[in-house]
């Protein structure tokens, strides 16, 4: 099977996956013993006719299966509905919040790869050396440290004591943003600023990204480092590595070309899985750094029983997981020709 039809088939398979996710989340969220209309209308002081009006508007009086059918028929028309809480179309809210998280996550995953893979390789080829031991300590603290605590400590040390980064709050210095005609195309500031050649905004956004990015990246970098180490150790015992040495290849070619490519396969899995996880789970980092991202937005939707936004966000995250998994599978086949699409 060729790549195109493989991708097409996988995307088709994504439809039942996402439907399944919506089904589960829809029913679980709608059976909570609370009255969303009352919450949306403003709580106990809301006038009953107002509450009733909201119920009508959002079909809350219909049986739950009918509500789901209405939701689905809107969905296939590309309509995610209007958030009763923000009063805006859900799709607009997502366009605002999702790129912020996407930018943070991509930055974090890039950082995690840049830190994790070299550390993993180094500790594998220098097994049981001081380098290996310090990497182990780095990794252990990486996945045992609570993210919010790490974020707070980093703020305290890097911002408050050392003053190396600007005020940790938000994605960019409001002065920079407001006082200039900065346009947002993708709503990812690093990209938008580069498109417009606004390097001042670029560096400002980058400075704002560093701490939350590192906070989010640390645990993943730790896992990548450990994973790379163990698969490297496995690979460098293989016959083809010895044969590569016997062929007269210098050690750096043996390690970084012949061993690393083979060791990357498990690492790619981890990176792919973490990417989805980071995206959906950035909420702690977002909260600590006042990052206006989709994680915080989603937590808000749960607190306010904002069903349309909750469903919209759920679909989005499910979609990201599906796409990332597909990318990982394609990447496998690129790295290892023995894996064929099937």
């Amino acid at each position, binding site marked *: 099977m060729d790549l195109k039809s493989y991708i097409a088939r996988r995307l088709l398979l994504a439809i039942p996956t996402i439907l399944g996710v919506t089904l589960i989340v829809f029913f679980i969220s709608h059976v909570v013993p609370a009255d969303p209309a009352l919450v949306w209308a403003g709580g106990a002081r809301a006038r009953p006719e107002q509450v009733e009006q909201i119920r009508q508007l959002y079909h809350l009086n219909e049986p739950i299966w009918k509500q789901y059918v209405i939701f689905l028929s809107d969905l296939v028309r590309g309509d995610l509905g209007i958030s009763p809480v923000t009063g805006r179309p859900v799709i607009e809210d997502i366009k605002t919040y999702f790129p912020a998280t996407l930018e943070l996550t991509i930055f974090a995953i890039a950082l995690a790869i840049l830190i994790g893979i070299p550390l993993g390789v180094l500790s594998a080829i220098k097994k049981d050396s001081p380098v290996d031991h310090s990497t182990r300590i780095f990794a252990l603290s990486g996945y045992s440290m609570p993210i919010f605590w790490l974020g707070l400590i980093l703020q305290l040390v890097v911002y408050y004591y050392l003053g190396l980064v600007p005020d940790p709050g938000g994605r960019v210095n409001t002065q920079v943003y407001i006082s200039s005609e900065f346009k947002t195309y993708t709503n990812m500031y690093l990209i938008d600023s580069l498109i417009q050649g606004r390097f001042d905004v670029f560096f400002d956004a980058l400075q704002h990204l560093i701490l939350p990015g590192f906070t989010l990246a640390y645990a993943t970098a730790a896992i990548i480092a450990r994973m790379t180490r163990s698969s490297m150790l496995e690979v460098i015992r*293989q*016959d*083809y590595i*010895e*044969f*590569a*040495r*016997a*062929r*007269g*290849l*210098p050690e750096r*070619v043996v390690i970084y070309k*012949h061993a690393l*490519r*083979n060791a990357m396969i498990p690492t790619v899995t981890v990176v792919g899985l973490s990417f989805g996880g980071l995206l959906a789970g950035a909420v702690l980092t977002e909260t600590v750094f006042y990052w206006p991202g989709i994680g915080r937005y989603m937590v808000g939707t749960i607190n306010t029983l904002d069903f349309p936004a909750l469903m919209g966000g759920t679909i989005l995250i499910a979609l990201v997981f599906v796409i990332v998994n597909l990318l990982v599978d394609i990447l496998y086949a690129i*790295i*290892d*020709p*023995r894996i064929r699409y099937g």
Partner: protein
Amino acid sequence: MDTVSTGDIEKLLRVNELYINFYTYEGVVKAIDGVSFDIHPNETFALVGETGCGKSVTARAILRLIPTPPGKIEGGEILFNGVDLLKIPEKEMLEYRGKKISMIFQEPMTSLNPVFTVGDQLVETIALNQKVSKEEAYNIALKMLERVRIPDAENAMTKYPHEFSGGQRQRIVIAMALSCNPSLLIADEPTTALDVTVQAQIINLMNELQKNMGTSILLITHDLGVVAEMSDRVAVMYAGNIVELGTTSVIFEKRYHPYTQGLFNAIPVFGKGKQTRLEEIPGSVPNLLYPPPGCRFHPRCPHVMDICRKEKPELIELEPGHYVRCHLYR
């Protein structure tokens, strides 16, 4: 002194009094215990012995491929064209590996990197070792593949190792190893993992290439059939020692050392029928953490004498060029 002198004949490789230990958690494994031999230009020299006797370790030591730690070369010389390979820096060693001395391994299935094409690996080796451009390297690679009779060489260059059979892969490995015209090819069990018919093809191929290219071969094997078909001279190894060394014809005919005799008696002979049991050498290969004192073979030897338990026998030249390490022939 254990010296194996082969007179005035020019020597390509001279391994002299090699000692190698492995430092493990359980203790020191004395894997190679004073091994000496010479390889002449244009000859095939076989190292024969059971698994674990140290033949592969000896071969890897020549290319300095022994992982250190746990392995350590404790003493001896490995003279290649008069240069002691154990004394030169690692960087200079790259001038020997793959260029003057090549090595092929037992498992053709796993000798090639699965994630790069055959062409990529061939071109990489040739370009690096012969310091030629990628295009030139590509042409040399094509010629080498044709030489080892890989059909449709051009197409084969774009394929990955898993798309070839075991025999074809071993041919590709041989092509890679011989691409830089080495003066010595170390072949570590090159046919063990192959089917018998394919074995014969590979043996013929290696014999032919050796004749045409003038490469000496150090053949590591436990298969006396392969030895008979390929080698000019043989050294029989047991537990880190060479116990008998001589021309293939003399060894096959006379077999002085009790271990060599045992090795030959363990070969099934066609026509003898199923009634006769194969003779086996009693006991098992000694644990080299605690090698037996004296002659390392004495616990299994049918002719064991008192002296065998106390004193390590010297290599004795029984006939010109034929050496045996055994107290029986003192």
